[in-house]
């Protein structure tokens, strides 16, 4: 049985359709990438999986349970969320923030127990920031802050984590730190990840590290295809989705390891017409 099963879902705001007949599955220990241009509906799809939006049609199953109309605390024990950028308000300590990952297990009048604190320490250790536990999280760097968000998701003890562009706004090194952390998580704990990203190379990175990786391309509220990074992120597909001329390179590090990356060469100028007949304007 797949961990997450999305069956023919439809969603829209008022008159505008955002998702049309989308179906896919995420299996145990797999990372599933959503790629597509800005505004294609990636974040909306993630919100549906998190149970935040009411579908217009179709069903979403988490561990075999339809999430429609289920209490937030039940959903939050199955799927956790790492936001793109977390808006910091009050200067809580790192421990306080990660403790909030336990909310789904604590009653309305309750406070976290010692056991919850142990789980928090474990989560912080897993992502390698136990030394930051007493720091104010408003004073952390962007990369460290995102590790705190991943630790909070781990404290929820779910089998699936949804990530919405988790490396946006991060510097060169911290982007890699986050990716390495996720690779280790998937490899060691058998977690499943559903991730929206703007960078095809993220998917190649996981595939290069021998993680079960599947990719789908989204455009105009629909899914194009789903498959391995090598199958899907081809030069032809990137051209048709993004209008970008790109080339995929394979490099052999040594006899056992090869890495694959895609390099963007240029935008397709030929297809940059504005969509209306130009010669009606400025004639004469």
């Amino acid at each position, binding site marked *: 049985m797949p961990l997450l099963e999305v069956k023919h879902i439809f969603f829209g705001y008022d008159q505008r359709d955002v998702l049309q007949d989308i179906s896919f599955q995420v299996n145990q220990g797999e990372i599933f990438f959503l790629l597509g241009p800005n505004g294609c509906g990636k974040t909306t799809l993630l*919100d549906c999986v*998190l*149970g*935040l939006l009411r579908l217009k049609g179709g069903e979403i199953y988490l561990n075999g349970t339809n999430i429609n109309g289920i*209490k*937030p*605390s*039940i*959903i*939050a*024990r199955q*799927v*956790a*969320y790492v*936001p793109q950028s*977390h*808006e910091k*308000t*009050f*200067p*809580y*300590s790192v421990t*306080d923030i990660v*403790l*909030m*990952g336990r*909310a*789904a*297990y*604590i009653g*309305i*009048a*309750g*406070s*976290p127990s010692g056991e919850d604190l142990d789980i928090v320490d474990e989560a912080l250790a897993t992502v390698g920031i136990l030394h930051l536990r007493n720091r*104010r999280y*408003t*004073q952390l760097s962007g990369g460290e802050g995102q590790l705190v968000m991943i630790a*909070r998701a781990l404290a*929820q003890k779910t089998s699936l984590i949804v990530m919405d562009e988790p490396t946006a706004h991060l510097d060169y090194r911290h982007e890699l730190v986050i990716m390495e952390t996720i690779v280790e998580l998937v490899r060691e704990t058998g977690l499943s990840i559903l991730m929206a990203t703007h960078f095809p190379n993220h998917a190649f990175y996981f595939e290069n590290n021998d993680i079960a990786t599947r990719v789908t391309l989204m455009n105009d509220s629909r899914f194009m295809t789903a498959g391995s990074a090598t199958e899907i992120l081809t030069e032809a597909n990137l051209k048709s989705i993004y209008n970008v001329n790109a080339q995929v390179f394979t490099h052999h590090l040594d006899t056992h390891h090869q890495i694959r990356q895609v390099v963007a060469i240029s935008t397709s100028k030929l297809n940059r017409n504005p969509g209306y007949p130009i010669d009606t304007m400025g004639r004469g």
Partner: protein
Amino acid sequence: MPRAILGAMVGGSLAISGAAFQGLFRNPLVSSGILGVTSGAGFGAALAIILFHATAPIYISAFFFGGLAVLLSFLIGRIYHTTPIIMLVLGGTIVSSVFSALISFTKYVADPTNELPSIVFWLMGSLASARYQDILVAGIPMLIGTLGLITIRWRINVLSMGDKEAQTLGIDTRVNKCIVIVCATLATAGAVCVSGIIGWVGLVIPHIGRMLVGNDNRLLIPTSFSLGACFLILVDNLSRIITGSEIPLGILTALVGGPFFVYLLKRTKGGGW
């Protein structure tokens, strides 16, 4: 004695609601009156002063209009079927200004020899009329609201992550927001209807609490209550000692609290903002 007890309850209730709202609205500049409860209660009291000239109707009317103002803010905030924080704040601002205008209107039509001074004094806040029966009547909503907020205090931490994140962390944000708003409104309306409008406590006492114990609402909520209680007893005593006649509380809270706040700000370097 009744005056000291009432002072402690009023100060504590205002401060604890302020702390809860600051967490809920994710904004440190919010006070206990953000959803219009103080202006609503002010109008209720002014109306009762003009119509009845007696104490009991003032309490009831102030409490009723305080609650009504919050309900209106909440309904305005629900225009999009959900209640995003920004819409609630906007609703509160609209309702507050409408009730402020209504207060001005009651002042305008009030009899300037006796009614107008009563209204003005009520709006400046005072515990002078405190009797034991006031504690019984107004104490009930204050107690319920305060205990409710203390019970749910850790959830306020989670709510301060914002609606989307709080929901994905497993909290029914709609229900939890409603509980916080109802509790804070009960506490504030109970306080305002016996004491009049006492500013400053619901805004700044929570910040003094943050400087002392940090931002975790598990500690901050009870700390705000005790600080607010102590602060108001202190200020109320000062108001009786300084001059022969009593100085209204609303004036003194700011005059005493302002310098003290600046002092604490320097001592603790602002608590990490």
